């Protein structure tokens, strides 16, 4: 029973992700009007920012699961935290790539230290790659779960602290799209943005459950193998 439920959920999330991504692509290419300043290339914004936000969501979810590892001694939370952060690093790498392409299209350079979001993602990318180094350097067990969780919690504190530091370090030249008065987008732009964000989030959810199901299958197999010996 449980297995089919898990399979159904993965299939449903996967289907949703495919449909939403197709819809977002269609909206971005055919529907949304060209940006007045940056022209067609600005459309990568509708990938770049939702991917970046999804990446934050992954790190946040990973930290929440990490808190459960330490607080509730929840054994399943360890692998859940790991999978969320793994997905976060994948989306983080995509953020760096799309941001780099956007910088190239807008300013003619592949990398701009002036773009806070991009610099922050570089810091986070380095930080979370070290998370994997830490994990691979330790024997599996409670100790590894605790240390990974502690490091993941440092990550979510590092995000605002680094953001603040990077803002302090340079003049703020990133185009401000959101501000205190709400999104500075037309209705069609906002719709496209929201669909794209939903697509990325559902993609994360689908990948998260697929990877988690794989990990669980691994451990079931191992238990079965042990029962046989």
């Amino acid at each position, binding site marked *: 029973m449980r297995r089919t439920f898990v399979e159904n959920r993965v299939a449903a999330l996967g289907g949703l992700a495919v449909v939403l991504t197709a819809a977002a692509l269609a909206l971005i290419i055919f529907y949304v009007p060209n940006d007045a300043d940056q022209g067609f290339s600005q459309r990568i914004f509708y990938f770049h920012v939702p991917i970046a936000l999804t990446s934050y969501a992954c790190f946040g979810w990973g930290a929440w699961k990490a808190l459960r590892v330490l607080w509730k001694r929840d054994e399943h939370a360890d692998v859940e935290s790991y999978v969320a952060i793994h997905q976060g690093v994948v989306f983080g790498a995509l953020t760096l790539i799309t941001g780099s392409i956007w910088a190239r299209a807008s300013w003619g350079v592949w990398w701009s230290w002036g773009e806070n979001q991009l610099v922050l993602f570089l810091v986070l990318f380095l930080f979370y790659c070290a998370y994997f180094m830490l994990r691979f350097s330790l*024997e*599996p*067990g*409670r100790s590894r779960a605790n240390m990974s969780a502690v490091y993941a919690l440092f990550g979510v504190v590092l995000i605002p602290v680094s953001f603040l530091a990077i803002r302090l370090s340079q003049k703020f030249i990133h185009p401000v799209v959101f501000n205190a008065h709400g999104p500075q987008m037309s209705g069609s732009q906002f719709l496209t943005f929201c669909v794209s964000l939903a697509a990325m989030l559902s993609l994360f959810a689908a990948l998260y459950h697929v990877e988690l199901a794989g990990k669980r299958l691994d451990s079931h197999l191992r238990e079965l193998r*042990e029962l046989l010996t």
Partner: protein
Amino acid sequence: MISASGLGMRYGEKRVFRDVDVELGTGGFLLVTGPNGSGKTTLLRVLAGLAAPSAGEVSLPARHTVGYLGHEPLVYRELTPLENLTLFGRLYRLPERAERIGMLLERLGLWGMRHDRVSTFSRGMQQRLGLCRVLLHDPQLLVLDEPYNALDAQGAELLDGIFAEPRTWVVATHEPQRVERLATDRVAFA
């Protein structure tokens, strides 16, 4: 004193042991035997409250009433015996620390070298100091991993005397004949 059921331990792919049950009353003596790498040390670390088992339930006494002696004597090599024991005496908030430390050093034959650095000691002397450290706070439960390790005949006799004290013991050794008569419980790993 110790109550554990269905203990299992694994490190990733590698299973160390499974389904170990331990019921040890106050004053009991649990003898853990088995060849190298069979999981003796891992079980002792679980029973000392140092490691969390990957399966099963374990209930242990409060951690400050436990004494653990591992493969290493667990003392700082660049400090003297007196400095080592004073540090742990402080951390355990012992009253009349100096008297107790002096008594233990005397008993284990280390009083004469109390101001020498541990790094100059032979392995057997270090083991004696490790025994001082583990007895320092008068623990109810003593978990000793290969306590006869490196001890000479005289040291081993001192240890036999220590085993006569009314405490609860968990001892892993591959020389079980020395303590066999004391054992009230056994775990034998294959």
